[in-house]
């Protein structure tokens, strides 16, 4: 099937252009430093000269909760930013350079073209996140205690779902415009919009950002499930991909 031929080319491209390595390296750095920062930040604060009296005693003793919290925070901020940076040009750039026109006059359907890109990005972030999660888990074990594997896997699964949401939305933005710059602007606007709506008190419960808090609570052995947010995340992924495919199918390249 031509889908797998295009997917293979996308994965090879990620490898040869070092994008795969960059994503893996950045996520691993955040995975490694999360337990390290959690462990040593209090010590760093205490070592500041002329620290006000009594403040050092107020700094809590670091725990595994801080390590998980730091990991989730890093993925929610820098991980999503990385998703945007890596996804924003994937379609727009090909349209801008003319490679899309070159390829689409050969037997590649526009649906396969888009879905292969989404799948390749998903694989790249899934593998990179797995390596990052493993390094975070190992350092947490060294510095604090072992995190239960099942819930920890669930946390990373939920992080991946949020990543997939942003990959799909950014891919849609990249499909709607013809230049990489415009795709970047639109993708950041979409990020601000989704994050803005997600921070609203009641509505935020149903938005993908809620999956981070659910995942963190799961990894630490508790927390209320956020199934509606998971459903909304899946809905956004499907909606963004269907919209991108419908638009791209009608677009003149």
């Amino acid at each position, binding site marked *: 099937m031509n889908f797998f*031929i295009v997917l293979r080319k996308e994965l090879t491209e990620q490898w040869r252009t070092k994008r795969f390595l960059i994503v893996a390296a950045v996520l691993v750095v955040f995975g490694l430093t999360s337990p390290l920062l959690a462990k040593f930040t209090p010590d760093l604060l205490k070592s500041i000269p002329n620290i006000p009296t009594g403040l050092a005693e107020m700094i809590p003793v670091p725990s595994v909760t801080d390590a998980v919290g730091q990991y989730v925070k890093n993925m929610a901020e820098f991980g999503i930013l990385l998703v945007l940076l890596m996804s924003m040009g994937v379609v727009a750039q090909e349209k801008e350079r*003319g490679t899309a026109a*070159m390829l689409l006059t050969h037997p590649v359907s526009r649906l396969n073209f888009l879905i292969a890109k989404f799948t390749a990005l998903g694989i790249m972030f899934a593998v990179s996140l797995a390596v990052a999660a493993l390094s975070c888990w190992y350092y947490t074990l060294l510095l604090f205690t072992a995190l239960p594997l099942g819930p920890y896997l669930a946390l990373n699964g939920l992080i991946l779902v949020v990543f997939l949401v942003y990959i799909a939305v950014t891919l849609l933005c990249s499909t709607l415009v013809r230049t990489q710059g415009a795709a970047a602007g639109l993708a950041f606007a979409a990020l601000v919009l989704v994050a803005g709506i997600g921070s609203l008190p009641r509505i935020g419960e149903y938005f993908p950002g809620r999956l981070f808090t659910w995942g963190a609570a799961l990894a630490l052995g508790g927390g209320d499930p956020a199934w509606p947010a998971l459903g909304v995340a899946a809905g956004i992924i499907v909606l963004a991909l269907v919209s991108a495919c419908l638009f791209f199918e009608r677009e003149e390249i």
Partner: protein
Amino acid sequence: MIQTEDLHKHYGAVHALDGLNLTVESGTVFGFLGPNGAGKTTTLRILSGLARPTSGRASVAGLDLASDGRTLSRRIGFLPEEPTFYSWMTPREFLDYLGRLHGLSPLERSARTKELLELVNLAEAGKRRIGGFSRGMRQRLGVAATLVHRPEVLLLDEPVSALDPVGRKEVLELIETLGGQCTVLMSSHILADVERVCNVVGIIAKGRMIVQSPREALMERYAQPVFVAETADTASARRWADRLRIQPWAAAVCVDGEIVRVTVKDIAQARKELLASAVAQEIVLRRYEESRPSLEDVFLQLVNKEAAQ
């Protein structure tokens, strides 16, 4: 093999195609000529499935583009004016990738890649990254890419515009040999190239086909004798041209710097009066010749007539 009927393409208020009727018979090498903005690229983009007509019908290799567009890519090869590739790939990888998409077996892909790289003189650069290629090398790779699956129809948009004289000669010879094997529709603004390889010519202006005819018939029908003279300076060339334009035997007079090009209706009269006119006007001539009418003369004559209407 290729047919368009009353094809229209509008971009807002701009009518890129305005009722284009085109017929390309099987096995011909069709030269598609027209000034900039005439609609050549738009036509090729529609025929390759990258763009849709606003109205009208088009069919390629027996496939109606409106209903059978999905299978079109297996039957055609399309070369855009500036072919672009994945810069991280090598030509071998790129041709192999296209071979995979067209369902060729590993053995077929390997043989076809080797054969095509040799055909377009890129065998030695087969393992180099395309990102470092010159425009001419990319153009040659583009030609190879259109041939991977041995298409029935080749759509070539300015296929030799970026090539040096040697590369141009080689690619034109290649196109000429393809004539018997597949149908070629080639747009170009280099009329000498079209004259050399195309056996049928179509001239488009303002989105409409002005004329479509076998090359020889076109030349016989429209080519008028031409005299070319080189004067000593631009001012005298212009002065003389103004004088010649009012002569009843002169069909058209063009001035390009010091060169005066006179297309004539009555060659006998022109032979008698042209030099006499130069002497009367005290024009110093460096060169004077009666030249064989070229496709360029026919093209300019027809396009200028269309523009005047």
